[in-house]
């Protein structure tokens, strides 16, 4: 789960990490009054859960409350990478001397957490890692042992930051780790961590991702969830319905199946057969008529979809039960597009018979099924 910058800053502040004074605003009026409150120059920042806000014009400096209002008006309602800007964070403008990067995340390959510190902050850290890896210090954290002081020392002295600020940065890193663990983070990032011209060290930006699997024990954070804030409308709808759906958006074939690996493979086979998968959709283990119906409905929300390929491996699930659900679901479809069904497993033959005379086309392998749907859609997409 992602949360907004202003929410992440609230979390940071709770753990004692210094952030610039500021407040979220939902309208140009509010932007002006927050700017008034803060006094002096302010920065107006679009709150959208996507990177590259700055380049997209979503972050602007304002000289006065009036100017802030004007900037707020420009930013609110913008569309950044498909996400509408509904709120902005207004913060006091900071005079920056240095921009650093500090982040904690999971290093999946090392099976450990990792602390990353770099003097090259304020830019895309992955790019820094690729171009100038020597500017980045990484230390792995065994969560049983916890982040130790010597590891922070290594990271700070290896990162190229101004070591006269080592004490402040050390304290912030300690708090960031404490925060990361306490909130079940999968990412806690300060980019940039700035040294101001007055020598203060402040988190100018804040990014927190929370492990979805851990939300059950993070009720306070779960409340911050905005379903759909980082996804498109169909994905948001799928999330509401509890269905694992990913939108690729530029394909003609809707793909669904049971099991993530099987669905991904099905997409690959459809693509190889000359079709273009429009989505990933995993109906999971319980292929009930209700789930299948919801799944069809979701897939058809994208008007680009003009055919569906459904691929089920019946391990414990019986094929006849699935077939029955499919037939019922199809009847309720708002748009009757061609549907190819590939099923294998218990009662495969019965299922096949049941489908005879329905608009649903049965195929016995993934490859022939994919070829069939592509053929029905008129060949190459």
């Amino acid at each position, binding site marked *: 789960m992602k949360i907004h910058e202003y929410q992440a800053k609230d979390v940071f502040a709770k753990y004692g990490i210094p952030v610039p004074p500021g407040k979220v605003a939902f309208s140009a009026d509010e932007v002006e009054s927050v700017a008034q409150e803060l006094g002096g120059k302010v920065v107006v920042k679009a709150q959208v859960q996507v990177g590259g806000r700055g380049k997209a014009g979503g972050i602007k400096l304002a000289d006065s409350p009036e100017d802030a209002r004007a900037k707020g008006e420009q930013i609110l309602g913008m569309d950044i990478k498909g996400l509408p800007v509904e709120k902005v964070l207004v913060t006091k403008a900071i005079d920056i001397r240095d921009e650093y990067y500090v982040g904690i995340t*999971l290093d*999946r*390959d090392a*099976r*450990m*957490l990792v602390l990353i510190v770099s003097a090259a902050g304020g830019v895309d850290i*992955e790019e820094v890692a*690729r171009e100038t890896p020597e500017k980045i210090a990484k230390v792995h954290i*065994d*969560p*049983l042992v916890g982040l130790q002081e010597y590891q922070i020392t290594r990271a700070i002295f290896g990162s190229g930051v101004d070591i006269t600020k080592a004490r402040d940065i050390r304290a912030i890193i300690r708090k960031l780790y404490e925060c990361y*663990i306490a909130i*079940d*983070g*999968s990412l806690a990032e300060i980019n940039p961590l700035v040294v101001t011209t007055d020598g203060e060290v402040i988190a100018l930006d804040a990014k927190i991702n929370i*492990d*979805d*699997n*851990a939300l*059950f*024990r993070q009720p306070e954070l779960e409340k911050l969830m905005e379903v759909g804030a980082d996804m498109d409308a169909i994905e948001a709808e799928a999330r509401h319905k509890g269905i*694992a759906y*990913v939108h*690729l958006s530029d394909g003609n074939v809707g793909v669904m*199946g*049971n*099991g*993530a*690996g*099987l*669905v*991904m*493979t099905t*997409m*690959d*086979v*459809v*693509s*190889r057969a000359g079709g273009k*998968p429009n989505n*990933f959709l*995993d109906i999971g283990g319980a292929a009930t008529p209700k789930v299948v119906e919801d799944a069809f409905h979701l897939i058809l929300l994208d008007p680009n979809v003009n055919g569906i390929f459904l691929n089920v*491996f019946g*391990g*414990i699930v019986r094929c006849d039960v699935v077939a029955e659900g499919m037939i019922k679901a199809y009847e309720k479809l708002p748009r009757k597009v061609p549907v190819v069904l590939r099923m*294998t*497993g*218990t009662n495969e033959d019965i299922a096949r018979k049941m489908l005879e005379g329905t608009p649903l086309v049965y195929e016995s*392998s*993934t*490859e022939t099924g994919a070829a069939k749907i592509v053929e029905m859609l008129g060949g190459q997409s």
Partner: protein
Amino acid sequence: MAILADKNSRVLVQGITGGEGSFHTPRMIEYGTNVVAGVTPGKGGSTWQPEGVANPVPVFDTVEDAVEETGADASVIFVPKRFAPDAVMEAADSGIEVIVAISDGIPINDMVKVYSFMQHTMTTLIGPNCPGLVSVDECKLGIMPNHIFKPGPVGVISRSGTLTYEVVNQLSEGGLGQTTCIGVGGDPIIGTSFLELLMEFEQDSATECVVIVGEIGGSDEEDAAEFIPEMSKPVVAFISGRTAPPGKRMGHAGAIVSGGKGTAESKIKAFEAANTPVADTVPDIVRLCKESLGK
């Protein structure tokens, strides 16, 4: 012959009286698995015997008790995600040699801890969020469908569930039986990955060829590929998710291309560098296995 577990494995089920445990345990027993004990704290001293199960299974309060009383050496964990990390550590700390954790939805930070804990034990953990393993005609630790397996020379390791069944089913139908089939799990942090299992298969005299069913995300396929040139046995690889876009999680938490890492291309390249054929489709896997076995 098989790896990790066989007909002599004395199997314990943690969470035997829960929904998943009581559904799948009879199927494990039906497959021939020697289920010697169950654990549910508070139900120690009772027995568990659903319809169709010939002999009652004794239930214990702790894994320690179960191991002491029944000599259990393998465990299948069906407990809910909140209790699963504790269950894994309990089993490892009680001397269980092979743990299969079926439970899904475990927080990553919990699993990172469990992973670190496991490094200091002699126990092998398969999973979590996995379908388990089948040593063909010997035992099943998990939830795979019983009927798809046939005995034979192929070892199968996979990150998926149904896709594994698909592969196994087509191998069986194509006349290629299996030694042991293992679903390692779809989470970013899993107990045992391809590399360790490749090493096990290399040691197993009955296994003549290994199929790796990989997918996008992480670098476990790449790590495994590096070991293949040291093996005496052929390996056939398959990667699903070639059409998956970066930054989008494809179902399991593990299947995601992020930060430029974990792409299908990178994995295919790694296998090709190891002179390992990469199948384009599941039927292709069967064909390449046959070729590699000279059939």
